[in-house]
C-alpha cells in the first residue's frame, strides 16, 4: 500500500512540467528542430545585421553616391567584388546600403498595414453586425483589384517617392490583414473563456487586447512573415518600374532596373541585386513555413 501516493506525486510533476514548457517555449523547440526554418532565421538575421552595419561597412557618401566615371561598368574584381555600375560606384556597397532601404521600407509598410488592418479586422470580427458588414464590403472592393496594380494606382496618384511607396504598399495590404485577424477573432470570440471574461464584467477593449488577440496570434505571425516577403518583392517591383524609390537612393529593385539597361554587356548588374532579393525572400519563406508548422502542427 505504500505506493498509493505515487500517482499523486507524478501528477504534480506533470503539472509542473506542463507549466515549465509554455506555449512559446514549445513553439521555439519545434522551430529549433526544423533545420530549414533555422537556416532562414540565420540568413534573415545576417541580412538585418548587414543593413544595420551598412554605414560601418561602406561610407554612404564616398562609396554609394559619389560617382567615379573612370571605374564605370567594371566586372567583378578583387577591388569591386560585385563590379561597378554605370557611374563607377561599387555595386556591393550599393547593395549593402540598398538592403537598408528595401528591408526598412517593407517592414514599415507591413507594420503599418498590420496595425490598421489588424485594428479594422478585430473590431469587425468582435462587434460583427453592420460594422462588420460595412468594413468587409470595403475590403472586398480593395481585394477585387490585384494588389500590385492597386499599389501602382496609389503611386500614380501620389507621385513616385519613398514615402508614397510605403503608403501604397501598406494600404493595398490592409484587407489581407483585416481578413486574417477578423477570421481569427471570429474563431476565438465565441469560446468559453471569452464568455467568462464577459461574465465577470470586463470591458470590450480589454477583452480584445487581453484575451482575443493573444489567442489568435498564430495565423497573424505567419501571415506577417509571408507578407513581408511579398512586400519586399512589391517594393522591388515598383522601384523596377520607376514607381518607387528614386535615384540616387540605392534600392534593390531600382538597381535591377539600371542593370536591365546594361544587361547585354554587364549582366552582373542584373544578377547580383536580384540574387539578394531572392535570398531575402527565401529566408522569409523558410521562416514562415517553419513558424506555420511550429505554431500549428496539424498543418504540416
Amino acid at each position, binding site marked *: *500500500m505504500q*505506493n*498509493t501516493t*505515487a*500517482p499523486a506525486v*507524478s*501528477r504534480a510533476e506533470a503539472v509542473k512540467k506542463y507549466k515549465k514548457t509554455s506555449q512559446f517555449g514549445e513553439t521555439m523547440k519545434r522551430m529549433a*528542430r526544423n533545420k530549414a526554418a533555422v537556416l532562414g532565421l540565420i540568413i534573415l538575421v545576417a541580412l538585418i545585421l548587414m543593413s544595420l552595419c551598412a554605414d560601418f561597412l561602406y561610407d554612404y557618401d564616398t562609396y554609394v553616391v559619389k560617382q567615379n566615371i573612370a571605374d564605370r561598368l567594371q566586372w567583378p574584381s578583387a577591388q569591386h567584388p560585385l563590379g561597378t555600375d554605370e557611374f563607377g560606384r561599387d555595386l556591393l556597397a550599393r547593395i549593402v546600403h540598398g538592403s537598408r532601404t528595401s528591408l526598412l521600407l517593407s517592414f514599415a509598410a507591413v507594420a503599418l498595414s498590420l496595425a490598421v488592418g489588424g485594428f479594422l479586422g478585430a473590431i469587425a470580427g468582435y462587434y460583427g453586425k453592420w460594422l462588420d458588414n460595412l468594413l468587409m464590403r470595403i475590403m472586398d472592393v480593395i481585394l477585387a483589384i490585384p494588389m500590385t496594380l492597386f499599389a501602382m494606382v496609389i503611386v500614380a496618384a501620389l507621385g513616385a517617392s519613398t514615402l508614397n511607396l510605403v503608403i501604397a504598399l501598406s494600404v493595398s495590404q490592409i484587407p489581407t490583414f483585416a481578413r486574417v485577424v477578423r477570421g481569427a477573432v471570429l474563431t476565438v470570440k465565441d469560446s468559453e473563456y471569452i464568455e467568462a471574461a464577459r461574465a465577470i464584467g470586463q470591458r470590450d477593449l480589454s477583452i480584445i487586447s487581453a484575451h482575443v488577440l493573444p489567442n489568435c496570434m498564430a495565423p497573424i505571425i505567419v501571415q506577417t512573415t509571408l507578407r513581408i516577403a511579398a512586400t519586399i518583392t512589391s517594393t522591388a517591383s515598383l522601384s523596377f518600374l520607376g514607381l518607387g524609390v528614386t535615384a540616387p537612393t540605392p534600392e534593390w529593385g531600382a538597381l535591377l532596373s539600371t542593370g536591365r539597361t546594361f544587361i547585354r554587356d554587364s549582366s552582373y548588374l542584373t544578377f547580383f541585386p536580384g540574387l539578394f532579393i531572392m535570398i531575402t525572400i527565401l529566408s522569409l519563406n523558410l521562416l514562415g513555413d517553419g513558424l506555420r508548422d511550429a505554431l500549428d502542427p496539424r498543418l504540416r
Partner: protein
Amino acid sequence: MRENKSKYSIDIEDLYVEYRTDYGVVKALNGMDLKIEHGKTLGLVGETGAGKTTTGLSILKLIPDPPGVIVGGSIKLDGEDLMEKTEKEMGQIRGKEISMIFQDPMTALNPVMTVEEQIAESIELHEQVSKSEAIEKARAMLELVGIPGERGKEYPHQFSGGMKQRVVIAIALACNPSLLIADEPTTALDVTIQAQVLEMMKELKEKYNTSMLMITHDLGIVAEICDTVSIIYAGQVVEHGNLEDIFENTRHPYTEGLFNSLPNLKDRKAKLKPIKGLMPDPANLPEGCAFCPRCDYAMEICKTQKPEKIYRNDGHYVRCHLYNEENIQEGRLETR
C-alpha cells in the same frame, strides 16, 4: 460455407508493433495474442491508447508506414500467414476476406464520391461483375442495412451519423468477409442509434457466419454480443477468457478495475471506484508489469519482472504476479 483450414479464423501470436517518430519509439503492441474461432465474436477491451485499433490495422497490414513498423510475431488468417503476403496479395484479402468498420463514421466516407460508388468499389474489385451489377448490389446492401437503395446516389454529407455508420457497415459486409473487425462501431453514435446498429450487426453476422473482432471499451456491448473477451493493457492481453470467465471469475486487478469503474444501477449509493492514474506513456513503458504503477496489489516483483500467462482453465488466462498454479483457481481479488 467455406472450408476451414484452421480452427481459428484469425490467430495472432506474440505481435510487436512500434511507431518510430522523431519524438521517440512508441511501443504500441508488446506481445499481443489474439485468437478467434470461426463464427465467433471476440471483444477486445481496453482504454484509449492500449493498442486496440493498432491490433485491428495490423491484421489488415494497414499500420500507417511510416512511422508504424511490425517488428515481430505472426498473424494467421485461417492458417495462412499474412506476414508473408505481398502488398498485391493483401489487396485481394482486404475487403474480401477481412473487412474493417472504422470508429468515426463522420470521417470514414469519401466526401466527393456517392455512397453507392463507395460500396460498389469493393464489389467490383473482388467479384467478377460489371460496374452496373456492382452498383445494383451496392443498393441491395444499402437496403440490407436499412437505407432505401435509391439514396445510394447521394453523397455522405447528406446522411446523418447513424446512417453513415450503416453505410460503413454496408461497405465492410459488401463482399461477405470471413472476418469482420469492428473498431468501436457505435462510440460516435447516439445511444438509441447504438442499440439499432449493434442489433443489426449481430443479425448480419449470424446470417453470414462471420467471425468478428469487436474493439470496444464498453463492457455492456461485450456482454451483449461477444463469445470471448480479451482485456488489453499497454499493447498486451492481460486477461482472456469467455464471458463467464471474465465476468464471473475476474482475476486481473485491471479487469477488476474496469468493472469497478462502471456505475451500478441497482445500488445508486455505491461509490464508483475508478482506476487511479493514467495509461503509462507507450514511449516509456515500465520495466516490469505495465499496470504496476496503478495497481493496488503491486509487489516488489511487479516492478522488475513481466508476468507470464497463468491458465485457470483451457480458455481463461491472466498475466499477473498475484497468481500461480496453486491459487489461480480460488484466488478472488478482495474488494478494496
